[in-house]
């Protein structure tokens, strides 16, 4: 699709612990000529707590935002996989005419892929990556409408378009532990560490993500430290030669700068 302006639902994490995802998303889409318009008065989608505790809140908290978005246009884009999923469920369960997209849906459209190739300043050719999609961006297909939910390709396509050496691995959609991080860090550490080890085994220099929960869990719960975990938008900003990336790297627990420097990306 050709998009020039779209309503934007950052979600709570992008205003809090994952501000670098918000900043890099805005920077990259701005550079690609796509105006992200933050939805005025947006509120929390309810996340896992909503649907775990209450069947009405499971839909109503997210649906409220679709109602706001209806006044703004036909689409609402969310960069967080968990928000995307709850908004998508609300889209299915309501009469809303708004279509919910994940930020990756815009980045992986053929028009955007062409634009990325045209605007490429610093190809990521020295960088070996694995793409980690997690759960809620792809599953279940009845909610996400995706056909390739066991082996998704959109992030692989985006990273390939900017020249990264995309490694194949079998853990693209295995769970990181999601929202259990505060209450059951033991479970999250086990699940996330395994993903990090499998990424190493696939020969990756770093893991690319499209969700603040995935990024935070993988970045903070590594048994043997040292594998950077980045947002796809941060790497796109590097590839497009955008300024102002330094402040993003400082917010990562595993510093991505050595890997990016070694690969000639910074």
């Amino acid at each position, binding site marked *: 699709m050709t998009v020039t302006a779209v309503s934007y639902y950052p979600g709570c994490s992008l205003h809090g612990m994952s501000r670098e995802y918000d900043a890099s998303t805005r920077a990259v889409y701005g550079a690609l000529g796509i105006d992200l318009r933050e939805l005025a008065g947006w509120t*929390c989608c309810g996340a896992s707590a909503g649907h775990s505790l*209450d069947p009405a809140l499971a839909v109503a908290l997210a649906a409220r935002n679709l109602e706001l978005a209806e006044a703004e246009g036909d689409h609402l884009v969310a960069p967080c996989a968990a928000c995307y999923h709850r908004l998508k469920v609300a889209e299915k369960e309501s009469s809303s005419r708004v279509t919910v997209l994940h930020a990756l849906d815009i980045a992986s459209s053929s028009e955007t892929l062409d634009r990325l190739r045209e605007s490429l300043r610093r190809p990521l050719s020295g960088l070996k990556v694995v793409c980690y999609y997690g759960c809620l961006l792809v599953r279940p297909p009845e909610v996400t409408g995706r056909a390739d939910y066991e082996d998704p390709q959109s992030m692989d396509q985006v990273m390939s378009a900017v020249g990264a050496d995309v490694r194949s691995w079998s853990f693209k959609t295995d769970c990181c532990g999601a929202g259990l991080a505060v209450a*059951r860090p033991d479970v999250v550490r086990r699940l996330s560490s395994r993903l990090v080890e499998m990424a190493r085994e696939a020969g990756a220099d770093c893991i690319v993500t499209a969700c603040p929960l995935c990024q935070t869990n993988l970045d903070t719960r590594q048994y043997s430290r040292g594998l950077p975990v980045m947002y796809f938008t941060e790497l796109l900003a590097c590839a497009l030669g955008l300024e102002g990336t330094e402040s993003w790297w400082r917010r990562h627990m595993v510093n991505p700068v050595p890997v990016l420097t070694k690969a000639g990306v910074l």
Partner: protein
Amino acid sequence: MTVKRAGSTSACVLPADRVRGVEGLDPELCFACRKCSAGCPVADDMELAPHQLVRLVAAGLEEEALHSSGIWLCTSCQTCTTRCPNGVDVAGVIDALKQRAAASGVKPADGRVLAFYRAFLDEVRAHGRVHEMALIARYSLRARRLPGDIRLGARMVQKGKIPLGLPKKVATGELRRLFERAKGR
């Protein structure tokens, strides 16, 4: 815009509803292939694995399933629902069990996850959006313990990943009505 149903996992709309009677969940279609449990990232930590929970519900023994604290370990990753050959919404069944357990006051042996979800919704209701520091404080009060990884939390604050500013309120009047409607159903 109207909301057609309370939710795809609308379990406890009326007290008389049984989890097995909820549209779309279809636990009685389970033929015990265990594909759900084979793909579950936390099945090994649950005393009753997903296929066992579904079988209990299908047999009308959901009371036993409600008291299984493993339901609170479900990460809602949707692998079980996605892979079920018979279209049983396994994650939806587990959601329905959690909802019923929470609504009927069933206290899980390990109450940490339930405390976290309650703290999370408290924070949504109070501020409209969730602020990590406030959420952690609410969780600590509800669970009567500090988060599991307090040193990591301190480092995240130090790095500026967890902001310390005072939360602003967004649409809290509207949300209060929304929560009250949900409660009064």
